[in-house]
């Protein structure tokens, strides 16, 4: 791990990396493993699916992940109702032996936009049942405030809809969230397409970035995972260092005193 990176607290875990990464869509399990390693991430997302025990796919995946050093963040991907999400979370807690849940309640099938009201209802119930809820939400300030009021210590607003790779389509909203929720752990989840998008999110002061497709569907996923690792670290260091104020007018960086061939205009 880069010595410039410092520890931070994500729920009950003290970790170093601020990049959370998904395990889906890789060309092969081998490339997935190499990409996860290259990302230097310590948190990986996983899911539950119907599987026939006669087939090996899930078992193979589990054998790769179960003895790894990663903290697992199960999701409720594909759930369209509060009931489905809660039941899936309960099943995930038993299978993965963690109370962490990336809560997804999809409200619209076209852009996979989270159902904000469903998220709040499900969050309340799951928190009451002892879960650490990581809600995948939109960047709506009021919804995010209500999720915090429901007991969420971590919010994961989208940068853009899942899998679009469009980056941060509403920086104003994300900047506002950071400003208005200074005590909440904020992680941009979804929509990240390029390392520069991740850097931007971190420069805004977000605590982390969660992505999957941008790495898994890169021409070279392992190299892209390395790129994102550096990008997240660079963005975080930039935030900690403090960005300069933007100006409308140019201002020379080279001292004007003693400028050669100077002449009065």
């Amino acid at each position, binding site marked *: 791990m880069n010595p410039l990176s410092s520890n931070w607290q994500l729920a009950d875990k003290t970790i170093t990396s601020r990049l959370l990464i998904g*395990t889906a869509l*890789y060309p092969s399990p081998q490339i997935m493993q190499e990409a996860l390693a290259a990302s230097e991430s310590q948190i990986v997302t996983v899911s539950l*699916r119907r599987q026939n*025990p006669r087939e090996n796919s899930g078992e193979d995946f589990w054998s790769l992940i179960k003895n790894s050093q990663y903290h697992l963040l199960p999701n409720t991907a594909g759930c369209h109702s509060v009931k489905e999400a809660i039941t899936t979370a*309960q*099943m995930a807690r038993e299978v993965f032996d963690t109370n962490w849940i990336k809560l997804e309640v999809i409200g619209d099938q076209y852009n996979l936009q989270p159902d904000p009201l469903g998220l709040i209802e499900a969050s309340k119930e799951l928190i009451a049942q002892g879960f650490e809820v990581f809600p995948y939400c939109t960047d709506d300030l009021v919804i995010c405030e209500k999720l915090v009021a429901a007991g969420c210590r971590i919010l994961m607003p989208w940068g853009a809809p899942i899998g679009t790779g469009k980056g941060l389509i509403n920086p104003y909203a994300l900047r506002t969230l950071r400003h208005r929720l200074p005590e909440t752990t904020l992680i941009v989840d979804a929509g990240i397409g390029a390392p520069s998008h991740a850097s931007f999110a971190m420069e805004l002061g977000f605590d982390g970035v969660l992505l999957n497709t941008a790495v898994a569907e890169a021409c070279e996923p392992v190299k892209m995972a390395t790129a994102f690792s550096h990008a997240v670290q660079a963005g975080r260091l930039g935030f900690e260092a403090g960005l300069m104020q933007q100006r409308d007018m140019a201002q020379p960086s080279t001292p004007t005193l003693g400028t050669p061939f100077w002449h009065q205009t």
Partner: protein
Amino acid sequence: MIDITINGTAITTEHRQLCEFLDSYFMKSCLQSHKKESSPNENISDGNSEFKFAIAINDNFVPRSQYQTITLKNNDRIELLSPMQGG
């Protein structure tokens, strides 16, 4: 015999006890795949491989601790979910 569905597939079974049904369900896979031995209170394992799973019946989670006491009814819907890649 009762008619149930598991992961959306309709089947008929003589096993009304959930743990017996699971024994039967996994033993079937055993014959065709990994020679796993069924053990209702554990994830199915033969020592080298492990089929990790959780169950919901009629949309309600069933903790592993209840597998021995649940009796299946006609038209029950079982969801049997296992680890998979996710984003």
